[in-house]
């Protein structure tokens, strides 16, 4: 029943197992998001010499839960001049892919809830492009100039940074000889080193492109509150706003998982159990993003696009060519 990755997932109990797996992954994702938000506020608070949330529950541990409850029971306001159908649909379109990409992330060595998909890395890249529709439609349907500018900026930024992001993965895929994320982890375990060492250039490109793809500082132009009020979600309230935030933080988790899988050896590591290694690596990525947010100012909008196309893309291509040549001559 729990072997649905290798048998057909559409038959009998395999289907039930697949649905149970999806629910469990959703629960894990929601838990991670809740405490990512708490950790972000706490860590940035410490970095800025503040205390951070400490009122709700011990050490403020229930703060995010209180915030979520507040967002869920808030009034759901739809602006009068907005395009009602698209306005209601946009957060759903944005959220669904962010949850679906978690399906291919191998959380641990024995992975009952990870799809053994032969095109895993491509699947991640392909689905994360769908979220752009939600962001863009949300900005457009709000019928608000700041939302529209934020939506357009976001779409342009996410689309252009997806190209170097995808190309930076190709070096790893060449070395592992597979698009399947499970195989990539095992190939790293066999080769004896994590791909961050031979693929350091690819890793740097990936890290920058991932930060931009996640709309986080210093690439948080789509949500520049000081120039755009807030960006594409300025008209959203209540649980629809919560859905956009949930999308963003789920992607933070998923991108951390992707980075850990591709460059840091996934669940492999000495002594500790696999899932704990995976959690440590993902949290290192998430902490790095907090750290960046507390440190960096926002990049200028006219530098943003040229940086992606003129710096990151050539670097990613160079990395790809070097990897291919080395692989051809060394093997």
């Amino acid at each position, binding site marked *: 029943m729990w072997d649905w990755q290798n048998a*057909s997932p*559409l*038959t009998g109990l395999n*289907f039930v197992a697949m649905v149970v797996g999806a629910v469990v992954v959703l629960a894990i994702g929601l838990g991670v998001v809740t405490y990512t938000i708490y950790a972000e506020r706490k860590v940035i608070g410490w970095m800025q010499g503040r205390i951070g949330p400490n009122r709700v529950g011990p050490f403020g541990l229930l703060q995010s839960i209180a915030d979520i409850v507040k967002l869920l029971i808030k009034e759901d306001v739809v602006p009068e001049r907005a*395009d009602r*159908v*698209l306005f209601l649909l946009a957060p759903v379109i944005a959220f669904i892919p962010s949850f679906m990409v978690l399906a291919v992330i191998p959380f641990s060595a024995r992975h009952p809830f990870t799809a053994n*998909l*032969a*095109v895993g890395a*491509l*699947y991640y*890249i*392909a*689905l994360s*492009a*769908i979220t*752009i*529709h939600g962001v*863009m*439609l949300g900005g*457009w349907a709000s019928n608000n100039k700041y939302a*529209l500018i934020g939506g*357009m900026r976001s*779409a342009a930024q996410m*689309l252009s940074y997806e190209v170097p992001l995808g190309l930076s993965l190709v070096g790893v895929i060449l070395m592992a000889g*597979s*698009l*399947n994320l499970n195989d990539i982890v095992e190939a790293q375990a066999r080769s004896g080193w994590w791909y961050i060492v031979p693929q350091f250039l690819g890793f740097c490109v990936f890290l920058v492109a991932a930060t931009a793809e996640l709309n986080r500082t210093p690439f948080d132009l789509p949500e520049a509150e000081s120039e755009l009020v807030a960006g594409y979600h300025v008209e959203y309230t209540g649980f629809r706003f919560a859905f956009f935030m949930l999308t963003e933080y789920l992607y933070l988790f998923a991108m951390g998982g992707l980075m850990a899988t591709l460059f840091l050896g996934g669940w492999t590591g000495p002594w500790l159990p696999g899932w704990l290694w995976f959690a440590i690596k993902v949290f290192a990525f998430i902490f790095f993003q907090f750290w960046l947010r507390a440190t960096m100012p926002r990049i200028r909008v006219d530098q943003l696009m040229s940086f992606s196309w003129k710096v990151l893309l050539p670097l990613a291509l160079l990395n790809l060519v070097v990897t291919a040549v080395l692989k051809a001559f060394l093997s």
Partner: protein
Amino acid sequence: MLGLAWTPPMIAFLVISLLILVCAIMAISFRKVIYMALAIGGVFLGCAAVYILLGAEFVGAAQILIYAGAITILIMFAIMLTNHEAEEPPAAWSVRNIAAAVGCVLLGVTLYAVIRSQSWPHGAAGADVNQGQSNPVAVGLALFQHYTVPFELVSLLLIVALVGAVILAQERKEDE
């Protein structure tokens, strides 16, 4: 029933094709251009689901990446950068529309006749299209062993199209 084997993949196929048809009909019956773009995105996603159901995972993922992702976004960009309230005028029976409708019906009848007159190969239901390899490996071997020359020619065509697009866009800018 209906001479079909009611296996789970067949049910999934029927559900997916129903969704594709609904999206396609919505795409042509909506009056607002942005809704049409979204419905076309639904059609692309449905086609990707059919590919994945047939075991062509790589084509399915590429379909989502390029069609549902990039092309639909490009259509939306074009809509947003032009007219905010772009709407089609309501349909009217002009000579041109009637001619187009007759042409469509004829095309449909021809296609149906041609498809029905073919004798399609009957593979076993469990046949492995990937011949024991994972799907991307099978696609890669086919591309680089059997179809190397066509593949390289297609890439040449793409480069020509890319350079052509750049040159066209540049000329437009100089005119202004």
